[in-house]
């Protein structure tokens, strides 16, 4: 009678596999090999896909997409760009008090500007206002215009990190 068989409460198949495969260590090694293989497989697949996507970078559809969505680098007017370009914040020199070390790494917003009617000083203030809205303590020392799309930005970011990592080093000592 099927009710009875259904009620049999067999342990879930995965556990059965585990018990069948003999001792625990053997099983642990098996899972580990399969596990790391799958991790590599998954990330390799993404990597391949990314390379393909980049190669296809000149295909018609994404090109159309690229233009309207991303405005050219020197953007006019004041925008709270907090969430659009936080990772390469070349314009704001965040000082020691930036607390962006945790899991929820906090974002430092940048603002590019070239319209004459709003002066750089005001931009700085607005940047700070955006920061205030984001809830981080950021000390602005100087404001420089930076081309965040250029490749030197990477070295620049590293360089700036040196200035801000005093605390990191202190902690170790």
């Amino acid at each position, binding site marked *: 009678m099927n009710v009875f068989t259904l009620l049999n409460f067999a342990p879930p198949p*995965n556990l059965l596999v585990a018990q069948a495969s003999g001792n625990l260590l053997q099983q642990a090694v098996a899972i580990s090999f399969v596990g790391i293989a799958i991790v590599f497989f998954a990330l390799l697949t993404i990597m391949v896909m*990314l390379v393909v996507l980049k190669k296809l970078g000149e295909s018609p559809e994404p090109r159309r997409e690229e233009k309207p969505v991303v405005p050219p680098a020197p953007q006019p007017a004041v925008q709270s760009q907090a969430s659009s370009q936080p990772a390469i914040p070349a314009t704001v020199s965040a000082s020691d008090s930036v607390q962006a070390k945790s899991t929820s790494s906090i974002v430092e917003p940048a603002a590019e500007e070239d319209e004459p009617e709003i002066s750089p000083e005001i931009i700085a203030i607005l940047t700070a206002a955006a920061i205030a809205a984001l809830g981080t303590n950021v000390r602005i020392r100087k404001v420089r215009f930076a081309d965040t799309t250029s490749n030197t*930005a990477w070295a620049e970011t590293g360089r700036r990190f040196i200035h801000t*990592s005093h*605390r990191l080093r202190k902690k170790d000592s």
Partner: protein
Amino acid sequence: MRDTLYQFLHDSGFGQFSSGNLIMLGIGLLFIFLAIRKNFEPLLLVPIGFGILIGNIPYDSQKLSLGVYDGPTSEAKLAYYSTKPVEVRGVSYDAFELLEPPYLSTHKDLVALGDAVAVHTEERIVYIHRDGNGRVAEPAPGVYTLSHGGHSVFVAEPRTDHRYSVIVTPQRQDMWNASVLWMIFRGIEFGFFPPLIFLGIGALTDFGPLLAQPRTLLLGAAAQLGIFGALILAVLMGFDMKEAASIGIIGGADGPTAIFLCTALAPHLLGAVALSAYSYMAMVPIIQPPIMRLLTTREERLIRMAPPKAVPQHIKILFPIVGFILTAFIANAALSLLGMLFFGNLLRESLVTERLAKTAQTTLIDIVTILLGLSVGAKTQAATFLTTQTIGIFVLGVLAFSIATAGGVLFAKFMNLFTNDKINPLIGAAGVSAVPMSARVAQRVAHEEDKQNFVLMHAMGPNVAGVIGSAVAAGVLLSYLQ
């Protein structure tokens, strides 16, 4: 009135104080101290530390059920018992066999039950009921009060096939006293909080450095060796498979992933696993550099990498979509973590949902962090934490981080065998997520050798790849072991 006062003092924390409580309070204070003074992941360790205080205030659990220790996970727990003869101290009795016990899954819980003798056989927990005179009662229909946790078990008429339908229900008392903590706990128990934190992390993460150098994805994969290496070591140390997987995941260096997997596989280890994961994440600048220096030559550390081309926005938009579909196909069980991570990133990169991304990055992740930290802490009690297991977990945790670091560095060297565009193997160590700490460590070690070598942004690639890698690993472990 003197009696009233006496009774109050007896019931209060002073009357119920035990050494376990004292030690746990000390541990809570230690982590709060580390967080505030040493800046050890304060956003998590302050809530967790305070949660430990909350969870270890002594009280008379017979009179007051605060739902902190072992409150119910649900209002109506429905389980199914069958009976079979069980031998207890040489005598054979009919006993309930609790199948898939909804909450009383560790023997410790059962042993603590005032009226029941807990006997466990392999995977299953069997217990019989003992009456007021200490005799083992025959399995009879009725309501059994499992005193400590405040559950009452309602057992229906016995049936001819020796099965009983059982409804485990929390007593009313629990529902009222449990208060905010009990509700919050459900958030972890159902795996609710970690995916929401991943949503915020996705909205906070710029995958740009990864997209600019796709090959660093493999470094993020290699660093997951720490997970599986620690898993094997844990099995050797005598942990069972589920526990070993929960300990191994510390090597993922990713708090929410560790909490997610540990809650599903070995909730009794949650406190130790979470504390060791966050502690070692904060100690990455101490753990990693020696291993990095040991495994690399000075020439390798001096390698300068050319800054890659900037990534156009459409790639940034396509990445979370493509990445989600691929990883979800391959590792179904990581779907809720990876789905939320990539969804948060799409909110961020799409540029048309900026207000949603901003809320996910700020308020939403903050609220969940507060609740998650507090409840992980409050779940950490003397009974499960003050064991030799915990020492083992902390030892295995540092080994996991070390293996992960070595895995990343060595794989970078391995990749250099096949490419002209050499990778500085130091950035391999950043595959141990701990975003962005381990990327900074790579920068610092490189900088020691060459003041003009800036590998920070290159290291961010494997760094964020490690987040994806450990979520995939968690998915694999979950689907095999759950």
